[in-house]
């Protein structure tokens, strides 16, 4: 049983990290369109530090592991996504004991989304990662007989919905009207992580 939990923790950290790293070029391309073009490479550097520490992270209770992973992102990413994703995972870690049920996860996730809002002095509808994290929090709170299917669908819809938005926060906001017509790279990286976690829950990663 302990070995199973350790393995689950390991996969919950490894899968999202590997998924984002695999899409680093795509994220960079998205960021080149409306930002400073470093989102993919920055996330890759931070998540590689997380993967390098995976054995130790998997030994910790999930909350502690998420806090430590968040700290790696804060210290290694070097762009805005470092403090933002770092805050997301550190806050999530604070709210979770170990492997949570849906209600615990929903509460912790909502608190983490609020922490990201505060860190970025941002809100929903500003064309940021929050535009995926917010809908995902709602889906978690609502619950569903087929939760992972609902989460995937909501996250995918939410990413697509960032395309027509004009950016209000982040480097993309400097473009004003010209930020419309592009998917937000932070929203996309958030969706990739949600999908990877769904894969783990479904036993596919």
């Amino acid at each position, binding site marked *: 049983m302990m070995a199973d939990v350790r393995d689950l923790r390991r996969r919950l950290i490894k899968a999202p990290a590997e998924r984002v790293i695999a899409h680093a070029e795509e994220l960079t391309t998205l960021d080149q369109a409306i930002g400073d073009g470093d989102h993919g490479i920055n996330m890759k550097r931070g998540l590689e530090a997380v993967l390098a520490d995976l054995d130790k992270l998997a030994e910790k209770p999930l909350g502690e592991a998420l806090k430590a992973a968040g700290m790696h992102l804060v210290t290694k*990413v070097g762009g805005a996504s*470092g403090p933002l994703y*770092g805050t997301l995972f550190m806050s999530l870690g604070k709210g979770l004991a170990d492997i949570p049920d849906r209600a615990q996860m929903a509460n912790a996730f909502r608190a983490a989304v609020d922490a990201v809002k505060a860190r970025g002095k941002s809100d929903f509808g500003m064309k940021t990662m929050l535009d995926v994290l917010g809908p995902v929090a709602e889906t978690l709170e609502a619950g569903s007989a087929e939760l992972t299917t609902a989460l995937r669908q909501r996250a995918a819809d939410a990413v697509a919905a960032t395309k027509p938005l004009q950016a209000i926060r982040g480097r993309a906001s400097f473009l004003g009207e010209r930020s419309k017509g592009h998917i937000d790279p932070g929203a996309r990286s958030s969706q990739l992580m949600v999908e990877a976690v769904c894969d783990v829950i479904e036993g596919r990663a």
Partner: protein
Amino acid sequence: MSQFVGIVIVSHSPDVARGAAAMVRQMVGEEVPCAFTGGNPAGDLGTDPLKIRDAIESVWSEAGVAVFVDLGGAEMNAEMAVEMLDPARGEKVRICNAPVVEGAVIAASEAAGGSTLEQVCATAEELSP
């Protein structure tokens, strides 16, 4: 330890940070402690919360430290750096809402007159609309 408020300059670009610090030096000499940092942990454009924390520590003054940042990620990484400090020190650090070059130079001039952290920041923040 200095009796004057310390100044920390944070830019995505190490060159900008170094250049702004040189302008501060030209204005106030060595009297006001001033540190700068720029670049991400890989040495590319960006910022590094650990280097920002170290910069704050390096100019530590009981009068406090005023931090000047350029763009969004720099501000957030500076906030993370402040949270990494001993909380008693963190309370004496302000991230000023002012342009990095002009803000740092004006703040250093104000600090050299023995002003408090609040006065130093207020003077620099007058530059922001």
